[in-house]
C-alpha cells in the first residue's frame, strides 16, 4: 500500500509556546521501496514516524494509507489500524522482558485475536527468515543486540503489514551487525512488497534505501543527491 503524507504539521507544547516538530511535510512512499528519513537530533524524523504510525495525530494535513486518511481516525480505530496493517520496529531495547523470541511474535497474533497455534507456524517462519529459529525459546536477556533487533523486525512483520515503520534499527548495534540488519530490511521490503519507512541517524546506511529524506527543524531540507527542496514539496529521491 502507498503511504502518502500530505502537508502535515505537528506542534508540541513547549512551556507557554508551541514547538513545531513538523512543518508542512509531505512525502510518498511506494510498496516495495525503503525510504530512509535522516536528520540531526530534534529535526522531527521520529515525529514523522510517529505520525505515520498513528501514534500521534498531526495538527493539520493528511496521512493516507492506500487512500484512507489515518489522521481522522479515533484512538480505537488507530489501534486497530496498527494491529492490522502497520508494522513497527522499535529500537533494540523495546522487547517484553518476560517473553521468549517466539512469544514476542505470538503476542501480536494474540492481540489481533488470531488462533495462536496457527500463528505459531507463521512466527517460526518469520524467525527463520531473520535466522533466529535456534533462539526461539530465548528471552531478550539471553539474546545479543543484533538478535534482539532481528526479533523486533520479525515482530513488526507478524501482523503481515503493508506498511513497515522502522525506528533507528542500528542505533545499538556495531557496524557489522547494523549492516546485516539493514540488508535484512532491504530483502524483506522487496520480497514482501512492503512500504518501509526507516528513521536513521547514520548516513552510511543510506545506500540501502530507495529514497532518502533529510529533515531539518521539521522541514524537508534536502534530498540524498543534495538538491534543495522547498518545504511542502513531495520528496522522493532515488539512490539506486
Amino acid at each position: 500500500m502507498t503511504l502518502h503524507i500530505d502537508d502535515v504539521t505537528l506542534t508540541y507544547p513547549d512551556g507557554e509556546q508551541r514547538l513545531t516538530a513538523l512543518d508542512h511535510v509531505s512525502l510518498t512512499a511506494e510498496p516495495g521501496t525503503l525510504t530512509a528519513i535522516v536528520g540531526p537530533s530534534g529535526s522531527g524524523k521520529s515525529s514523522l514516524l510517529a505520525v505515520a504510525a498513528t501514534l500521534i495525530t498531526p495538527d493539520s494535513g493528511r496521512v493516507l494509507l492506500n487512500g484512507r486518511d489515518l489522521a481522522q481516525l479515533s484512538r480505537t480505530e488507530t489501534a486497530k489500524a496498527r494491529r492490522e496493517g502497520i508494522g513497527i520496529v522499535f529500537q533494540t531495547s523495546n522487547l517484553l522482558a518476560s517473553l521468549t523470541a517466539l512469544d514476542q511474535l505470538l503476542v501480536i497474533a494474540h492481540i489481533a485475536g488470531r488462533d495462536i497455534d496457527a500463528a505459531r507456524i507463521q512466527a517460526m517462519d518469520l524467525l527463520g527468515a531473520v535466522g533466529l529459529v535456534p533462539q526461539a525459546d530465548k528471552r531478550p536477556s539471553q539474546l545479543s543486540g543484533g538478535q534482539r533487533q532481528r526479533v523486533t523486525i520479525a515482530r513488526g512483520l507478524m501482523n503481515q503489514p503493508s506498511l513497515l515503520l522502522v525506528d533507528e534499527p542500528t542505533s545499538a548495534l556495531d557496524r557489522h551487525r547494523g549492516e546485516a540488519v539493514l540488508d535484512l530490511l532491504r530483502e524483506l521490503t522487496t520480497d514482501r512488497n512492503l512500504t518501509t519507512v526507516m528513521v536513521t541517524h547514520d548516513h552510511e546506511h543510506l545506500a540501502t534505501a530507495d529514497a532518502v529524506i533529510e529533515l531539518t527543524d521539521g522541514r524537508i531540507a534536502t534530498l540524498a543527491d543534495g538538491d534543495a527542496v522547498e518545504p511542502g514539496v513531495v520528496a522522493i529521491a532515488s539512490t539506486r
Partner: protein
Amino acid sequence: MFVAIRDLRHAKGRFALMGAVVTLITMLVVLLSGLTAGLARGNTSAITDLPADHLVFSAPAEGQKLAFTESSITPSVQQEWASVDGVVSADPVRIAMTRASGSGSGSGSGSGRSAAVAVFAVPAGSALAPRVGTDRVVLSSKAAASLEVAAGDQIELTGQLVTVEAVSGDDEFSHAPVIWAATENAPSSGLTPGNATVIALTTTGGADLAAADQALGTRTLTVAESLSGIGSYTSENGSLQLMRVLLFAISALVIGAFFTVWTVQRSGEIAILKAVGASTGYLLKDALGQALALLAIGTALGTAAASAIGAAIRAFAGTAVPFVLALPTLLFPSAVMILLGLVGAAVSLRTVTSVDPLTALGSAR
C-alpha cells in the same frame, strides 16, 4: 492473559513474595473468621437454635436499648400473644445466669463440681424442650462436661436437686453452657415469678406483629435481630468484625500498592503493546487477570493453611477453643479477599489507561 501468565512465570520471586503476603493475610482473616464464628456461637447458639422465627421482648424504657437482661413479660401478655392472629406458637422462655453443681448423690455419680450456666426455663411440656419437667432438666453437652455429670445424675440448681433427664445439643448463651429446666426450678434472677424473659414465636406470613407490639407494649424482633440484645455478643462481635475489616482494608492497600508499583515499572512495555495495536480493554483484561490469578492462588493457599490449622485446633483442643470450621467461614472471607484485592489492583489500572504508546518511540519527543 498472554503476557500476564508469562510475567507470572518470569518474575517468580516478586510474585511469590506478593503471593505469600496474600496467603498470610488470607490465613489470618480465615482464622479470625473461624474464631469470630466460634465466639458468636458460644454467645448465641441457644437463641439461634430455638425452633422459632421471632422473639418478643418487653419494650425498653425510653433511651434504653433492648436487652435480654432487661426484658420481662407478664403472664397476661404471654397469653395475649398466643392468641394473636398468625401466631402458630408462643412459648415463654425465662433466661437466667446462675451456678449449678454436680450433687455427688442420686442414682448417678454426681461430681460436686460447679460451673456457671445459663438456665433456659420453660413451662413443663413446652415444645421448646419437651423432655423438661419439674425437677428434671436437660443439659447441653458442655454443661454436662463442666459439671462432670451424665443422664441420670443429679445436680444442684438454685438450691434444688434436679435430675439430669438427658444430655443433648451444645447450646450456649453468653458463653455459658445451657441447662433447659422447668420454670419452677429456674432462679428468679430479678424477674417477677411467672414472668418470662422473652416469648419465642412461630408465625405465619400474615401475622401483624407490629400491631400486636403496639397493643401489648412489647417489641418483636426476628431471631437474628434479637442477638443485638446480648450485650457480650454485641461488644465482642463488634471488636472482631472491626479487626476483620481492618485486615481486609490492609490487604486491599497492600495489593493495590504492589500492582501500582508493578504497573509503573512495566509502563514501557505497556506502551509497546499499545503501539503494536493492543486495545486498552485487552491490556486491562491482562492486568486484572494477572491480579486475579495471584489472588486466587494466594487465597487458596491461605484458606487451605487456615483449614488445616482449624482442623488441628478442633482435633487437639476440642471445644476449649471456640472455632468454627465451616464453608461460610472459609469461603466468604476468601471471596472478600479476592474481591477487595481486585479493587486494590484496579487502582493501578489508571496507569495502564494513561500510558502513551508514543513513549515506545523513545525519541519521539
